């Protein structure tokens, strides 16, 4: 009986390790595997349809309206891409966690989902020129409005752990006292209760929040280094990437992204925001 048990254990071990190895191998040789699955520019044109991955629940960048139609800043751009290519567009609803995979496996031709350019991501996908940028914003109550970073020294600034705001203030303004929270909801509540003097995070986020909460204004709407947001395609899909870069440069000449801003973001951010702090024309930052 004992020997039999040992035998079963051995077999289990062997099969399990085989499975593990094969799954690891699967991840390992993706270089050869993925090279085949993207569609070139000509193939997209021929098929008459481009597949674009967008957010479907991140208003105002990508969302679905009450008639089931995709809308938003990213979608406005996607519609134009399809129009200029002369093809129909098919949207695929993506989530933050699956965006890289979609582009890396070629399941979509382009990812246009508020995709921030980072080095890790650039190893998996190819980014085109940016069409938007995000900086830090600082929101504070109207009666003690903070319009300059220097005003913050010695005051309590609310941040959310793990955000760029946290690292930026720790590094550049050590004399600002930071109050750290785990979640956005807690941080906003702290600001509403007056536990801190101001709150800082991505400017897109605080701008939209300030509109919803009268009595609070974004005094500083562009602070720190800009993170850029760009379309992404599968690695190696140069024909599509080149076409996209050209398209973004050409659209810059007609100020397309300002029109996009006016159509989709202006109503959300209101007069408080300066479109030049968010929009990138022709792929050129600053």
């Amino acid at each position: 009986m004992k020997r039999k048990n040992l035998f079963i254990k051995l077999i289990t071990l062997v099969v399990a390790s085989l499975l593990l190895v094969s799954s690891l191998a699967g991840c390992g040789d993706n270089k050869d595997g993925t090279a085949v699955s993207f569609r070139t520019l000509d193939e997209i044109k021929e098929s008459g349809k481009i597949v674009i991955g967008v957010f479907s629940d991140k208003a105002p960048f990508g969302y679905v309206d009450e008639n089931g139609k995709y809308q938003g800043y990213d979608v406005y751009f996607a519609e134009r891409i399809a129009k200029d290519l002369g093809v129909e567009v098919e949207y695929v609803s993506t989530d933050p966690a699956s965006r890289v995979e979609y582009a890396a496996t070629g399941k979509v031709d382009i990812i246009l989902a508020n995709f921030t350019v980072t080095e890790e991501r650039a190893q998996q996908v190819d980014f085109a020129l940016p069409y938007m940028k995000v900086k830090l914003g600082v929101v504070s109550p109207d009666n003690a409005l903070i319009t300059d970073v220097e005003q913050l020294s010695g005051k309590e600034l609310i941040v959310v752990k793990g955000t760029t705001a946290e690292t930026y203030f720790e590094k550049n303004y050590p004399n600002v006292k930071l109050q750290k929270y785990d979640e956005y909801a807690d941080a906003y509540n702290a600001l509403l209760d007056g536990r801190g003097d101001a709150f800082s995070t991505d400017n897109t986020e605080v701008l939209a929040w300030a509109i919803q909460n009268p009595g609070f204004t974004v005094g500083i709407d562009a602070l720190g280094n800009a993170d850029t947001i760009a379309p992404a395609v599968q690695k190696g899909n140069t024909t599509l990437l080149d076409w996209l870069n050209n398209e973004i440069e050409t659209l810059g000449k007609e100020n397309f992204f300002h029109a996009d801003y006016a159509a989709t973001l202006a109503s959300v951010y209101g007069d408080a925001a300066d479109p030049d702090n968010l929009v990138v024309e022709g792929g050129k930052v600053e």
Partner: protein
Amino acid sequence: MQDSGISVLFMGKNFLRLLEGLWVTLRISLIAVLLSIPLGILFGMFMTMKNPVSRAVSRVYLEFIRIMPQLVLLFIAYFGVTRAFGWNLSADVSAVIVFTLWGTAEMGDLVRGALISIPKHQYDSAAALGMNKIQTFGYVVVPQTMRRLIPLTINLTTRMIKTTSLVVLIGMTEVLKVGKQIIDANRFDYPTAALWVYGVIFLLYFLACWPISMLAKKLEKRWR
């Protein structure tokens, strides 16, 4: 504005979209359940075989599926297979495959449990009455096993229906995702919509799972 969150449900095609989302949920889970039950019964019988190789194989399969989160399995089936072999499975097919694999493993273990719960003296008595193996199975074992399996199977079925909400991550817009889309599209104008939308989704899930529970109750009564 405060109490008008409910109006979001009747704007445009919103309600219809929720129903379409529910159909996606039900389609995937019901296909998977219908495949899992017969496959699971076979797998459960396979698991009770005394052969060490079949035991090892079924053990590895069961543990693999049980330990892996369904989300990881979905990613492997949808993205991993494309990366590794270049096969482009659609989201529908990947979801059905993953949920069937999962359902078969779980159902198999339930069947195994039900089978070994039949005491040995029942087999002995059947043999003493002169029944052969097939008769023992058909007249003695199966009827008792079935009765024990119903509540467990219903449990698994409703769990599968609810777990399909994971398929959003491979791009399928099922009922919960449609709900999030509706809430998000209206978050500036109707901040209270979330409560109503989630309430309706709760009701839709209930309406989907309740008839299954009722059916189970009926069967249990009939087979008592």
